[in-house]
């Protein structure tokens, strides 16, 4: 049985006097214990809202959430605030993009780690401090005992992100959601944090939902990848299959528009034309159609359904990219 089962998760933001906006539109995916699942997409595709909805962090007013989020058989969406508070930090951990704004600036790091331990594991303060030092050490913060007494501004960006991961992992949750955990960091620090996440997933058996816009990060980390566009999953596949043969024109376009370090130079990039603001609503057809090089007439009239194309792959497209022919062996 999957650890987390998201079914038809829909989030609609409503505001008085304005058109309701569907940020997440019938998103479904599973996370098996110990698995790393990626949610990939550009800004505005609904990947962060999905994570906030799972964690129950969206405001009650103004956001209408439907569908179901089953965690070990319990629908998280039906839990009360109090029950959800017990689960967050204990069963579900979350790492945010910007560690400076998700750590409390006026409380020392140590207290922010022990808070979780005291709240969920009823540890006395002294014991919690010892445990906190161990946690900081585990996530690779040098001299943890000194760092416990310091404030977030005294730590560098990479160290802050490590501290945040330590807090998220304090109660050994079975599921960790990481929302762009390395976007605010430099590449060499990003490599450190990704290696750390990989190691923790391997050693602690934590399942990881990785939310990112960076296909490079996904390629090295995720077992399964969901590509989101305008609130819907347009393609789902195992990472090797996805990168070897992207079928949705959007995935294909994204991959061919990134300059690659290991590709020969001198060729022009193949950008996706237009921008996200050119989308049409999913109810009228395919949201990506106005930017799609494979557009057919049917694309702007009929909403494409999600189809199983075999090999555990799901695709939402009327005219997918042809899979590359099996490579001929050159002599």
């Amino acid at each position, binding site marked *: 049985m999957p650890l987390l089962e998201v079914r038809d998760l829909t989030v609609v933001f409503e505001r008085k006097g304005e058109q309701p906006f569907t940020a997440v539109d019938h998103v479904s995916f599973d996370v098996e214990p110990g698995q790393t699942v990626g949610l990939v997409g550009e800004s505005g595709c609904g990947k962060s809202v999905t994570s906030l909805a799972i964690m129950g962090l969206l405001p009650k007013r103004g956001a209408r959430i439907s569908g179901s989020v089953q965690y070990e058989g319990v629908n998280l969406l039906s839990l009360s605030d109090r029950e959800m508070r017990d689960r967050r930090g204990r069963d579900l951990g979350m790492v945010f993009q910007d560690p400076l704004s998700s750590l409390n600036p006026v409380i020392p790091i140590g207290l922010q780690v022990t808070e979780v331990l005291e709240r969920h594991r009823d540890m006395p303060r002294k014991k919690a401090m010892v445990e906190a030092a161990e946690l900081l050490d585990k996530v690779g913060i040098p001299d943890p005992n000194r760092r416990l007494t310091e404030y977030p501004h005294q730590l560098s960006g990479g160290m802050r992100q490590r501290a945040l991961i330590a807090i998220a992992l304090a109660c050994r949750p079975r599921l960790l959601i990481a929302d762009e955990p390395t976007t605010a960091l430099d590449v*060499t620090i990003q490599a450190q944090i990704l290696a750390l996440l990989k190691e923790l997933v391997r050693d602690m058996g934590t399942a990881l939902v990785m939310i990112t816009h960076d296909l490079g990060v996904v390629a*090295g980390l995720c077992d399964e990848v969901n590509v989101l566009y305008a609130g819907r999953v347009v393609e789902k596949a195992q990472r090797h299959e996805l990168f*070897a043969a992207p079928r949705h024109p959007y995935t294909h376009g994204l991959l061919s528009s990134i300059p690659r370090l290991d590709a020969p130079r001198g060729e022009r990039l193949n950008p996706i034309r237009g921008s996200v603001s050119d989308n049409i609503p999913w109810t009228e057809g395919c949201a990506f159609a106005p930017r799609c090089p494979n557009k057919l007439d049917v694309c702007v009239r009929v909403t494409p359904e999600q189809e199983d194309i075999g090999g555990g792959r799901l695709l939402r497209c009327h005219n997918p990219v042809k899979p590359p022919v099996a490579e001929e062996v050159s002599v």
Partner: protein
Amino acid sequence: MSTAVTPQPETPRPDTTADTLVTVEGIKVHFPIKRGVILDRTVGHVYAVDGVDLSVRRGETYGLVGESGCGKSTLGRAVLRLTEPTAGRVVFDGTDLSSLKGEELRRMRRRMQMVFQDPMSSLDPRQSVESILVEGLRAHDLDKGREATGKRLRTLLSAVGLPTTSLRKYPHEFSGGQRQRIGIARALAVEPDLIIADEPVSALDVSVQAQVVNLLEELQDEFGLTYLVIAHDLAVVRHISDRVGVMYLGGLVEEATSDDLYAEPLHPYTRALLSAIPVPDPLVEDRRERILLTGDLPSPANPPKGCRFHTRCPWKQATRCDTERPELREVLPGHKVACHWAEDIRAGRIRPHEVEAVLVEEEGISPDVPLVGPASVTEALNP
């Protein structure tokens, strides 16, 4: 390439060759750190740029890469004298910019323009696109009557791929990619020779980044522009640059053509940087070996003695590294490195070893200085 390790004879001084557009010589930018309310004493300096030499040839794209806080943006601003350099000089097309003042400098600036990272904060929200573009033309007496200017604006817009109806619109009516196009059109308006682009695509979505990268390349072909592109994304820089300089803590550590730099990075930092960049291909990702650097970038207010990188370098040796600052020297033809041991590392005579992470002091000036809030410049350079 077997004999190439022997040092090449020094190339003629770059500013004497006719095809060099910009020469930067020993440029330094130090920001004072001030403390105290009344006395305003200077308690130290942030060594944002600390002695950089480079030259950009006419018509080429020079890419400057490095992580945040390495001084790449400050260097770009210092070249245009938007930030006054502490020492060193910039020679632009035979003219020493540091000797220019007032009106002369202003006239010179027509020939060097800048494209900024965040198009939303670098475009005045209360100016229409037309007024944004015309402002530069007026300032440099290029406004030759309503008709000629109108024609010029339409050419500009079509060059950057915006509809002519954009002229009456305001920046907020455009998407991020389109705003960056306006920023580029503004730089192009005054017919510059050099464009310094500071992180021109990093604020944009991936699918839009490629559009702007392609646009920059097309404009270069069309108008014969010279670019100095500053970015942290090595993949983007490698794609558009002919030559690349890698910066670390205020200094250049390596400079080479972008093919050479990727094929054979010689400086340990460049090696680590290249190996850290994720490649969107699982087959490559599973096989490649990462050089994980331990620790963080040291504070530019208190840079390490000797080689700036020695605190994190997996190839660090017992001698010279922590005492003597390496000069940028030519190790292979056209390939300069600032590392004492570049040849030995290249030949595999020195192997990487474990590095103990060193605590990075955010304060870093001296423990006696009381902590009165974050020193703004240090904080800004050390996010």
